[in-house]
Structure formats: C-alpha cells, structure tokens
C-alpha cells in the first residue's frame, strides 16, 4: 500500500503540496486560537505563532524563495558568536518539506517505473507481432469459420480467448519465477521498505499481475485480431485474396523490429549511463582507505567532562596494546557517517576548514596520506598544533610551505605540523573538504568514536571490551563496525539502481534480439519462392543470405537511430542519478550503438543462413 501511495504521489505532486499547505494553515489557526484562549489578542497571537513557526510567511512576504530563506538564515547564524565546541557554521541549506520527504523515493520510483514501463511496451510489441504472424497463417481457418456463419465479433473473441489463455499461462510462469527470485529482486530494488512489512507475492499482487498480463495481451492482440477477422466471403469465394498488408500492417515484422530495437536502445542507454556512473564513483580517490578502518563506540556512563577528557587518551593507549590492532585513535569525526547540515556550504564561497578533534593514531587508522611534515604524536599532547588537509593548506598559504606556519582555528593560533591529502569524508559524491585536525577535546554531549586499523585477523571484540573496561570508569561498549559498511551505505543505492536498470536493459535487448531473429526467420519462409528465383538466376548463397539479413537489419538500424535520439532526449531525467557522466555521454551512446549493431547483425544472420540452403526446384514446385 505504501508503494502504491508513493506511485500515486508521483502524479499528485502539486495536490500534495496544497494539502501540506492546508494542513499547516489548520495547525497555525489552532495554535492562534490556543493563544487567544489565554487572553492574547488576535494580532499578537498571530505574530507569536508565526514567529514560533519560523516566520515563514514573513520570509515569503519579503520575496524570499526557499534558497534565499536558507541564505538569510545562514547570514543570521554567521552573525552569532562562534560556539567553540561546534566550530563555525559552514552552511545552511533550506529544503522544501515535500522534497525532503519524497525526493529520494520519487527518483527511485520514476526510474523503476520508467524501466518496467518500457519493458512492458517492448513485450507488448513483441506479442503483437507474434499474434499478427500467427493470425496470418490461420486466415484460411478464419475464412472457413466465417463461411460457417461466425460474425466478425465472434472471430475477434476467439482470437482474444487464445491471447487470454497464453497471457494467463505466461503470467503464472512469471509469478512462479518472481516468487523464486524475490529475494534477489528486492536486493537490487532501490526502494526502502517499511521495517515491518516484508514485501511478498500474495494473492493481491498475484491477482494484479494476472490482470495486467491479460490487459496487455488484449490491448496488443485487439488490433491484429480485428484486422485479420475482416474477411470478405465474396472475395474469398472468387479467389481474390484481400491484401492485408496495407497501411500500418504493410510491414508488421519491420515495424516490430523498429519499435523493439528503439525501446531496447533507450533501456540500454539508461543502464549504460548508470553503470558508467557507478564505475566513476568507485574510482574516486577518497583520500583514505575505508576498507581498512573499523569503528568502535565506547562511552563512559559518567558524563563529566573531566572523566571523558582523561578516559579517551588512556583508552587509546590501552587499545594500542590489544593484539590485532595496528593503529588506533579517538575522534569526533567518522568518515562517511555525516550529517548534511555541517558539511554544506553555499556554492562558490570559500570554505573555512572544519576543525576535527583527533588523538594520535586516527589519521594512521583511516589511512590518510602524508603530503608534508608529520602526523600528531603523543608528544604534542594538548599543544596548539594542527595537521591540515591539502586544500586547507592551499587556502591559508597558497603554494608556500604550510608546515611550521601558524593558523587561527576557533580563534586560537595553532602551529601546522603536517599536511595530509584531502579526504572525501562524506563519500564519493562529496567534495574534498578543507579540514584541520587538532587535539581532541571530548564534548560532553556526544562521545568520540574509536577508529582502528586491524592487523592480520584483527582484534577480538572481547579483548576490546576488556581493554575499555580496564581503565576505571564504567563504560558502554557498542558494536564494532567495519568501514566498508559505511562505504556500502554510501554507494548502495546507486549500485541497486544500476543493477536494476542493467537487468531491465539486458531483458530488453534479449527480447529485441528474439524479435529480430523471429522476423528474419519469417522472412526466409515468406520469401522462399523469391529467394529460389534469385538462386535459380545465379545468386550465390552469400548474396541470398545478405538479402534476407539486410531486410531485417534496415528497420533495426532505423530503430537504433530513433532509440539513440529518444535516449538523448530522455537521459536528462536521469541526471540526478549520474556521477561525473553527462546524460548524453558519447562513450556510452557509442558503446550502446555498437552493441546493438553487432547483436542485431548476429540475430538477423543466424536464421537467414537457412536461405542459403533453399533448393530452388523444390521451393518453386510448392
């Protein structure tokens, strides 16, 4: 149901925005009446309520849009004194409520819906071609039935019944396959499901699938069935066989190939673009090694700042002695576990370095690369020293050497002792951010995390617990998480989207190739007499095969062209899901074109080989 609601939401975006507005207006009105009941006048009550509500109406009246409101808010926050514990605010981004809640699922649904929709059309085109081919071969039988008194409606009904039987059988087979592959399918669906609703194929889903199957079969079979059942008995009796191949039905095979290839190309281009994006994403140098780092959460129960300040350095020292620990440190920052609010900046604005509190061992544990100088050591304990990221060093000192210079961090002068390569702490999509690593001062509101780099098989959680408990204060030790899990969180959705669209694209290409091969095979049977004449007139087997293959390949190539155009037109819809790849990436489009040309040539050529074996005498005698 939740899924259906989201699909409905796609088409009701404006209506939903209106509903949210109405809901907020109702809420504000109730709050105003609440103030009035306390004896406050109407206008004062309105002022109070709007103020507490964030003064959205005032901002709107002043002509701010959502982005402008974010900028105004940021300017106001920047004017406040810097909170030394949090460091300076680097940016505030205002997002519309609707977008915040719905955007990610909307995107995924668009993608899934568009992919599946294209595939269903492709299947429909395929089936339509088959129905026409099958019906054409049964025209004699249809004529006999008509002569026995069957009306056109009855003939159409008969063909639709055939289509229904086939659709039910195919849907049941599809459902069995879906049940068997449900887990694998869910793993690649880029949708979040409610934790207590395990998606399953139940009676409702099964019934809906069956109805859709029958509906598609009727839609695609109705046209050919109507056309084929238009039998004029007088013409049949006179031996004047009506030419069905007129208008749209003049070349049904070619139309089917054209449409199938065009649709498959659109799917392939989408899958190809996402595949290239994912590849680019995995190639990005994060500046640290997420594979080698593990994260442990440890917190003393006593929240007194002096307890924490003494505990963490002692903990790091103990953990260093645990077997299986290569490097370890405590930090108030964990790569890839980020919240947008602190990471965002306004575009084009120089970014102040984010002060990150670390103990010695953290930068070694995450695998930071030293560019110059050295990392923090225990000898620096509580000295105002800092390690800068390369871009922070550049921002402060340009091309000059940063090591040995002084920088002001949270208004305190710090001596730069080293420079490390930039890290993309928020994952491959984030920018490398300017950071300054200084001595950790644990905040009382949130315990720092322990980052460790294992050696060999790594430490046992029991050893880590024992070490954490051996220092003195009572502590809570949370689970140990590998850094790859954090990375996975970051690239899982793109990976799922890519897998899904690639799967749909592969199915689409497969269907299109079956269509191409089918039309090629049909052409050999249909044109056997003509081909026999050609052979009798001296055409070589190669020439005959080429004639058949070219007849099929021409609409395929036209379909390729139309598909590429459609893909270039539709690709910008994918833009938000792409990473360092343009929607009209020539490399992807050329690869798709080449793949389709090669695959279609093979699919057309294999059945066409039969044409070379035609015996002209036998074919002409038939």
């Amino acid at each position: 149901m939740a899924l259906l609601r989201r699909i409905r939401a796609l088409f009701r975006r404006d209506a939903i925005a209106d509903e949210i507005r109405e809901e907020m207006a109702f809420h504000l009105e109730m709050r105003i009446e609440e103030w009035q009941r306390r004896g406050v006048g109407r206008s004062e009550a309105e002022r109070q309520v709007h103020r507490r509500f964030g003064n959205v109406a005032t901002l709107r009246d002043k002509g701010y849009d959502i982005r402008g409101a974010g900028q105004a808010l940021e300017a106001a926050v920047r004017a406040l004194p810097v909170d030394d514990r949090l460091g300076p605010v680097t940016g505030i981004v205002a997002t519309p409520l609707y977008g915040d809640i719905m955007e990610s699922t909307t995107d995924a649904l668009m993608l899934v819906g568009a992919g599946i929709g294209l595939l269903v059309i492709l299947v429909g085109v395929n089936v339509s071609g088959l129905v026409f081919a099958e019906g054409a071969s049964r025209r004699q039988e249809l004529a006999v039935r008509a002569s026995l008194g069957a009306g056109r409606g009855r003939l159409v009904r008969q063909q639709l019944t055939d289509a229904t039987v086939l659709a039910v059988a195919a849907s049941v087979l599809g459902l069995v396959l879906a049940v068997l592959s449900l887990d694998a399918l869910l793993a690649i669906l880029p949708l979040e499901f409610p934790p207590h609703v395990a998606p399953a194929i139940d009676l409702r889903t099964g019934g809906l699938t069956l109805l859709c199957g029958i509906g598609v079969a009727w839609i695609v079979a109705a046209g050919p069935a109507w056309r084929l059942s238009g039998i004029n008995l007088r013409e049949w009796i006179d031996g004047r066989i009506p030419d069905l191949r007129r208008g749209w039905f003049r070349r049904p095979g070619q139309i089917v190939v054209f449409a199938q290839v065009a649709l498959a190309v659109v799917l392939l281009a989408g899958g190809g673009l996402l595949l290239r994006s994912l590849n680019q994403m995995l190639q990005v140098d994060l500046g640290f090694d997420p594979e080698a780092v593990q994260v442990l959460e440890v917190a003393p129960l006593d929240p007194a700042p002096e307890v924490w300040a003494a505990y963490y350095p002692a903990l790091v020292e103990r953990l260093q002695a645990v077997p299986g620990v290569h490097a370890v440190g405590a930090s108030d920052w964990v790569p890839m576990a980020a919240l947008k609010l602190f990471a965002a900046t306004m575009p084009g604005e120089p970014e102040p370095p984010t002060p990150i509190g670390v103990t010695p061992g953290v930068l070694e544990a995450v695998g930071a690369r030293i560019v110059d100088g050295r990392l923090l050591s225990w000898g620096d304990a509580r000295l105002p020293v800092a390690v800068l990221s390369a871009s922070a060093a550049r921002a402060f000192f340009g091309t000059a050497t940063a090591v040995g210079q002084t920088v002001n961090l949270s208004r305190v002068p710090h001596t730069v002792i080293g420079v490390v390569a930039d890290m993309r702490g928020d994952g491959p999509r984030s920018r490398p951010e300017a950071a300054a690593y200084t001595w950790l001062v644990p905040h009382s509101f949130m315990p720092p995390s322990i980052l460790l780099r294992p050696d060999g098989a790594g430490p046992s959680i029991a050893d880590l617990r024992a070490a954490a408990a051996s220092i003195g204060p009572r502590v809570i030790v949370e689970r140990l998480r590998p850094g790859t899990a954090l990375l996975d969180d970051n690239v899982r959705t793109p990976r799922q989207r890519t897998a899904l669209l690639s799967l749909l694209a592969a199915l689409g290409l497969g269907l299109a190739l079956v269509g191409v091969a089918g039309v090629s095979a049909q052409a050999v049977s249909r044109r056997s007499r003509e081909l026999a004449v050609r052979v009798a007139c001296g055409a070589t087997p190669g020439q005959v095969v080429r004639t058949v293959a070219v007849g099929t390949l021409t609409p395929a190539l036209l379909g390729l062209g139309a598909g590429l155009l459609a893909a270039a037109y539709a690709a910008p819809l994918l833009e938000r899901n792409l990473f360092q790849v343009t929607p009209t990436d020539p490399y992807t489009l050329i690869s798709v074109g080449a793949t389709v040309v090669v695959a279609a040539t093979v699919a057309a050529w294999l059945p066409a080989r039969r044409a070379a074996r035609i015996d002209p005498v036998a074919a002409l005698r038939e």
Partner: protein
Amino acid sequence: MAKRGAGTNSDQLHGTLDMLVLKTLHHGPMHGYAIALRLEQLSNEVLQVEEGSLYPALYRMEARGALSSEWGVTDTGRRARFYKLTKAGKAQLADETQSWARITAAVQSVLES
C-alpha cells in the same frame, strides 16, 4: 567534513519522536495539532513538540507505511488531515516500546548501583 555526533544525535531524536507519535496515535486517529497537544499534555508540558520536527516525522512514517492519513472534519467543523496507525505501525510501536523499556531498565539499574 561532518561531525559524526550530530548525525547520531538527530537519528536518536527521530527514533524517540516516532515512538511518541505512534504511542499517541495508539488510542485512535488524530490530526497533527492534536498529536502535538496531546504530547505536551501527557508530558506535563515538558515535551514541546516543534512543528518542524512533528510534520516531517508524520510524513516520513506515512511514507514508510507506519501511518495512514485521510482528510476529515474536526469537532469544530474544520477540515483536517487525520493520521492513524497501520498494522505495520502497531508492530513498530510494540518493538520500539519493548526496546525502550529494555534501555531504560538498563540505565535505571546502572543509576541505582
């Protein structure tokens, strides 16, 4: 580069607010304002629910299937959106109440030691 602490903290707050909202709706459908009011009353005015947190939480839970909503008319004849618990929401509430009870019992036993 981001502070880990803020992320964790905000996740925890989300979780607690979700549980409180689910609990409030346990007794029957309510509109957003009534949910906020009920939370404030039940907590003796200790919990002031910000609209900026409440409505995103409601929409998020609805998107995840824990709540459903429909437009109705209040006692005073105004149109309002009423939220109610779904089967999944009831299961989530049962789970979260249980784990909350476990945590508070653990903390209590530490404090009493």
